[in-house]
């Protein structure tokens, strides 16, 4: 097993890169889990708007409105300056900025309704409409009580009570897919990290062990060619399985409460993708790239697979043109099946899952066959020389 030992020795020299990838990926996954990004609730979560409120009137009526808004929504303090407000609106630190104009209370008493507020928004989205309807609802309730003959103080207090009486919401449970929501993004991002690790580690190791001087040395030794390649294959297999096992074990440990039969299929799907990544590494290593070229190819291939196949941006938001191109990449089939198993899609048949995994496997077989062809033609050329 000398070749195998040599393989492991060479690989250990490249291991720090893999450890950096693993630590960063696992660190982010753990941080996201503790931040609750992957969790879901069994009760309806009412959205709190992020409002910035400037009270220029500073009266009992305006204070009561500000208090009502602070009960319903999150009030964010931003400097009353166009630049600061534009920045906050652009980066969605706030959804809307409301100024309670001077004379608000007087206008309420006199029945005037013109420009009680000044609202500043940027995107013109639903949140702005919700903020405006909050203001309209409050003022209408107060005015209704006053129209019925109540004084301002009573109207303010009664409106507050009436508006607090919201509607009940029942969250109907999604069935099987409900529990696995945290696992879905983890397994989706796994494609990026698997490609990065396999390409950046396996490639240089195979390049070294297939260098002509080392190959010639092995050929004049007692080791058979078949044994030589089997030992290299074994070394690669140990690495691929070890990396895959670590990543899957971390995922399953982080989302232990999400495990189901579907999660088992997702694990199998990730193993097929690990094989795809390894076979791409083998194919690229045929061209004996240098360290920087491997780095370049790792970046391009992993980013292309992630951006075009719905890893970084959900597939539902990608254009048809991008998805048509993505079909020619293994990540597309992986992400699609992963979404069916763990994500929002509601049904997946066993035959469909098997077909998607077979398509992925084809993306592993083709580069391997190409790698054999390239190596054979390279050997024939060198023999001819």
């Amino acid at each position, binding site marked *: 097993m000398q070749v195998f030992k040599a393989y492991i020795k060479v690989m250990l020299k490249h291991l720090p890169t893999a450890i950096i990838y693993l630590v960063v990926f696992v660190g982010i996954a753990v941080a996201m889990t503790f931040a609750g990004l992957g969790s879901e*609730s069994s009760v*309806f979560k*009412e*959205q709190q708007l992020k409002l910035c409120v400037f009270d220029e009137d500073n009266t009992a009526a305006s204070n009561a409105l500000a208090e009502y808004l602070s009960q319903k929504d999150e009030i964010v303090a931003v400097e009353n300056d166009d630049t600061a*407000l*534009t920045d*906050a*609106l*652009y*980066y*969605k630190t706030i959804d809307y900025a*409301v100024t309670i104009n001077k004379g608000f209370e007087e206008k309420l008493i006199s029945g005037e*309704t013109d*420009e*009680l*507020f*000044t*609202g*500043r*928004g*940027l*995107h013109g989205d*639903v949140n702005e409409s919700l903020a*405006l309807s909050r*203001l*309209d*609802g409050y003022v*209408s*309730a107060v*005015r*209704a*009580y006053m*129209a*019925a003959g*109540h004084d301002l103080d009573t109207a303010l207090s*009664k409106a507050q*009570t*009436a508006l607090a*009486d*919201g*509607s*009940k*919401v*029942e*969250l*109907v*449970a999604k069935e099987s897919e409900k529990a696995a929501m945290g696992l879905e993004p983890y397994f989706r991002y796994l494609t990026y990290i698997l490609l990065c690790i396999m390409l950046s580690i396996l490639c240089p190791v195979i390049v070294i062990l297939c260098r002509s001087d080392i190959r010639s040395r092995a050929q004049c030794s007692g080791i058979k060619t078949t044994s030589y390649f089997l030992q290299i294959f074994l070394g690669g297999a140990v690495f691929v399985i070890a990396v895959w096992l670590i990543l899957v074990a971390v995922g399953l440990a982080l989302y232990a409460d999400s495990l189901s039969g579907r999660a088992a299929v997702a694990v199998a799907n990730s193993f097929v993708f690990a094989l795809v990544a390894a076979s791409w590494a083998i194919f690229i290593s045929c061209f004996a790239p240098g360290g*920087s*070229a491997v780095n*370049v190819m790792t970046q*391009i291939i992993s*980013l*292309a697979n992630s*951006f*075009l196949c719905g890893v970084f941006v959900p597939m539902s*938001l*990608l*254009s048809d043109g*991008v998805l048509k*191109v993505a079909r020619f990449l293994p990540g597309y089939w992986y992400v699609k099946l992963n979404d069916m198993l763990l994500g929002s899609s509601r049904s997946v048949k066993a035959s469909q899952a098997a077909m998607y995994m077979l398509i992925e496997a084809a993306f592993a077989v083709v580069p391997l066959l190409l790698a054999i062809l390239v190596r054979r033609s390279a050997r024939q050329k060198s023999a001819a020389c």
Partner: protein
Amino acid sequence: MKRFFHSVRYFVISGFKSKNLVFWLILFPIVLGTFFKAAFSDLYESDDMFIKDPIKTAVAGESAIFKVTLDAVEQSGGLPLEAVYTDDDTALQMLKKGEVAGIIYIADDGRLSLSVMESEIQQQVLKGFTDSYNANAAVITDIVKSGKDVTKAAEVLSQGGYTKEISMKHGNSDIYQQYFYNLIAMTALYGSFIGVQIGINNQANISALGARKNCSPMPKSMALLADFTGGCILQTICMVICVTFLAFVIKTDFCGRLPLAYLASIVGGLTGVSLGFLIGAVGRWKEDAKIGISLIVTMPLCFLSGLMVGNMKGIMMNIAPWFNKINPAAVISDSIYCLSVYESLDVYFEKIAVMLITSAVLCVLGIMLTRRRRYASL
């Protein structure tokens, strides 16, 4: 002077012959920009926050007032809601199949309740509607109970529009555009690889070229200045290629201020080269280690500016607003963001000034570390 221009020329030529520099400063931004375009091009318009189609909702129960209210709301253009009146069981089936966003139940007392499967934006709109309906019903019931006249109150409850709306939109408010601004910032800061090269090329104890230069008759200050000028020219060419690609191929919207975007990116590139020059001047590590250090420095800066997570700058705005003002990546991307979002150019020139000051400080620190270095003759 001839020797100076000779050095500048050869620094630029050798830069373009370096595969690493060509990849990271020219090819990588083009590749990443293309992926950004593929992933983010239609994201803003198709955002769930802009509801274009009516929200399909099942309504279980009968109420004439509800129908009248809904018609009135639809006519006023308020709520984009398409109601499907049906019984409880069918409504639930429709919800589970995903045919409707929610079910509005009308109780015997006229109050509304809601059943949904998610807490997304469509469901939030439905919740807003049912809350408002129930609140109005509560007001009317309360007034009736108190024995007062309800006619005027009912009329007032149907009114609205108390807000004067001002749009802060002056240019492009697409939040996904900031990925492209950050891509420019990343390319500018990758100029630090060139800066590292300048530092290394002038230190005799680190590179063979540095040793040769130090024993040449050319004054050290002139050699350094020539390399720095060459580095800036090289980085300027890379920045121009990057911005040209984004503007004319990717069609990034600079709101008709493309020349100013070129200026900002070129000045940003100068900051990147200066940063690299300082890193190159510190310590006795080899080139690979110093390139590694510059990556370790620039990548977190780009991350905190929003290259990987879109609203990171907004998050930093809440946590540490001062950091966005000194983070070179944030300052560079902000200078281009200003062109697209603000009418006035005051903030733009403020950012340019910050970049120039940062570059000057980094250069001075780099020069202080490299000046008057003497090497023992072995």
